[in-house]
C-alpha cells in the first residue's frame, strides 16, 4: 500500500497535470473562436465560386471534348493523388487519426483495385500515421508548423505544387481529405474529389439567364483561370475547416482530460484521508494499550 507521502505526491502531480489541460482547453477555446470566424468568413467566396463554376459548366454543356483537362479529367483514373490534411500537433482527441484512417481506407481500397496511389500529406501528424504503411508512395510532407494563421498564400503554394504535378501527368484524380467543422463536439472527416471537380448543381435565379452569359475574354480562357483558382479555394477551405476542427477537437479532448483529472484527485484524496484516519486510529490504540499495561 502506498504511503501517505506517496499519495500526497501523486495528488500534487495530478493537480499539476489538470492545470495544464485546463490551460490548453482555454487556449484552444480562444483559438477556436478565431478559426471559426475565419472559416465562416471564407464561406461566401467558395459558395460564389461554386455558382460561377456551375454556370460555366452549364454553358459549356456536355461537350467536354475541348474542355480543359482540369474540368473534364484526363479520361483515365489509373493514378490517384490523395491529399491528406491534418494538424501539426497532437493532443486533440481523435482528430488526426480519424482523417488519417479515412485516407488509409481509401488508399487500401484503391491499391486493392490495382490503381497507383500517391499520398501528399499536409501536416505532420497524418504523415506519421500513414508512413508506417505507405512510406514508399508518400510525397514530401507539406509543413505548416511555422504558420500561425492559415492564409490564402499557404493554400496557393500547395495548389501550385498539385497543379504542377497534374500538368506533368503525375496523377489523374485528386482527392482531398480533411475534417469538416460542425460544432465543438462534432467534426466530420470528409473526402472530396477536387480534380476533376465534382460540379455542384446550384439552383440559382440566374439559371435561365446563364445561357445568355457573355464571356470576356471567352469561356475557355476564363475556365483556364478559374479551374486552378478553384483548386486553391478548395484547399484553402479545407485548411480553414481543419483549423477550426482541430481546435474544437482539442477543446473537447482537454475538457475531458480536465474532468478525468478532477475525478482522480477526488479518489486519491479519499484514499489519502482514509489512510491518515487509519494511522491515527492505530496510534491511539497503541497509546491506550500502553496506558493500560501500566
Amino acid at each position, binding site marked *: 500500500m502506498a504511503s501517505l507521502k506517496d499519495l500526497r505526491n501523486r495528488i500534487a502531480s495530478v493537480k499539476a497535470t489538470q492545470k495544464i489541460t485546463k490551460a490548453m482547453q482555454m487556449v484552444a477555446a480562444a483559438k477556436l473562436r478565431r478559426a471559426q470566424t475565419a472559416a465562416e468568413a471564407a464561406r461566401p467566396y467558395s459558395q460564389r465560386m461554386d455558382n460561377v463554376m456551375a454556370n*460555366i459548366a452549364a454553358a459549356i454543356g456536355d461537350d467536354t471534348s475541348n474542355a480543359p483537362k482540369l474540368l473534364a479529367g484526363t479520361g483515365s483514373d489509373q493514378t490517384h493523388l490523395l491529399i491528406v490534411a491534418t494538424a501539426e500537433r497532437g493532443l486533440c482527441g481523435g482528430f488526426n487519426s480519424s482523417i488519417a484512417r479515412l485516407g488509409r481506407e481509401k488508399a487500401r481500397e484503391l491499391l486493392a483495385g490495382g490503381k497507383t496511389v500517391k499520398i501528399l500529406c499536409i501536416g505532420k501528424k497524418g504523415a506519421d500515421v500513414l508512413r508506417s504503411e505507405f512510406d514508399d508512395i508518400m510525397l514530401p510532407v507539406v509543413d505548416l508548423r511555422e504558420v500561425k494563421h492559415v492564409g490564402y498564400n499557404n493554400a496557393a503554394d500547395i495548389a501550385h505544387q498539385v497543379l504542377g504535378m497534374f500538368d506533368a501527368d503525375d496523377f489523374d484524380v485528386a482527392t482531398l481529405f480533411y475534417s469538416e467543422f460542425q460544432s465543438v463536439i462534432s467534426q466530420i472527416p470528409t473526402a472530396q474529389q477536387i480534380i476533376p471537380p465534382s460540379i455542384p448543381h446550384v439552383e440559382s435565379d440566374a439559371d435561365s439567364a446563364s445561357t445568355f*452569359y457573355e*464571356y470576356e475574354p471567352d469561356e475557355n480562357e476564363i475556365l483556364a483561370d478559374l479551374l486552378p483558382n478553384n483548386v486553391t479555394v478548395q484547399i484553402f477551405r479545407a485548411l480553414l475547416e481543419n483549423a477550426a476542427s482541430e481546435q474544437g477537437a482539442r477543446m473537447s479532448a482537454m475538457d475531458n482530460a480536465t474532468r478525468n483529472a478532477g475525478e482522480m484527485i477526488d479518489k486519491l484524496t479519499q484514499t489519502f484521508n482514509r489512510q491518515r484516519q487509519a494511522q491515527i486510529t492505530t496510534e491511539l490504540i497503541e497509546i491506550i494499550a500502553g496506558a493500560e499495561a501500566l
Partner: protein
Amino acid sequence: MAENFTFELVSPEKLLLSGDAEMVTIPGVEGDMGVLAKHAAVMTSLRPGLVGVKMGDGSESAFFVRGGFADITPTSVTVLAEFAMPKEDVTKEAWEEQKRIAQEEYELHHAAGDEEKKLAAHSYLDQLNRLEPSILPA
C-alpha cells in the same frame, strides 16, 4: 431615381462588401466597365485595378483588387477577387509588397523561359506601376 442592384465583393478571406449599389466600375481584362442595374449577363476576368462602388445610399468606396472574376447579371454583381483591400487601407508598404511579388513572379518566369507567363507577369507589373499614382496618396 436610379435603380439599384445587389453588389458583393468577396475575397477568399472574407466578404468585404455586400449591399445595394447604384453603379459599379470594374477593371475587366478587356477594359474598364461601368455597370448599372439591368446590365446584360457578363462574366469577365479582372486585371489588377480599382473597383469603384456607388452604393444605393449615395456613399462611395473603392477597393484595390488583384485577379479573379466578376459575375454580372441584370440584378446582381459579384466580384470574386483573389486579393482585395479597401483603397484607403493600401499603405506604401503594402503596395511595395505587391510590386515585389509581381517582380518575383516576372523573374521566375523569365528564368524559366516561359514566354507566355513572362508576358502576363510583365503586363501585370506594368499595370501596377500605372495604377500607383491613383492609389497611393501623394
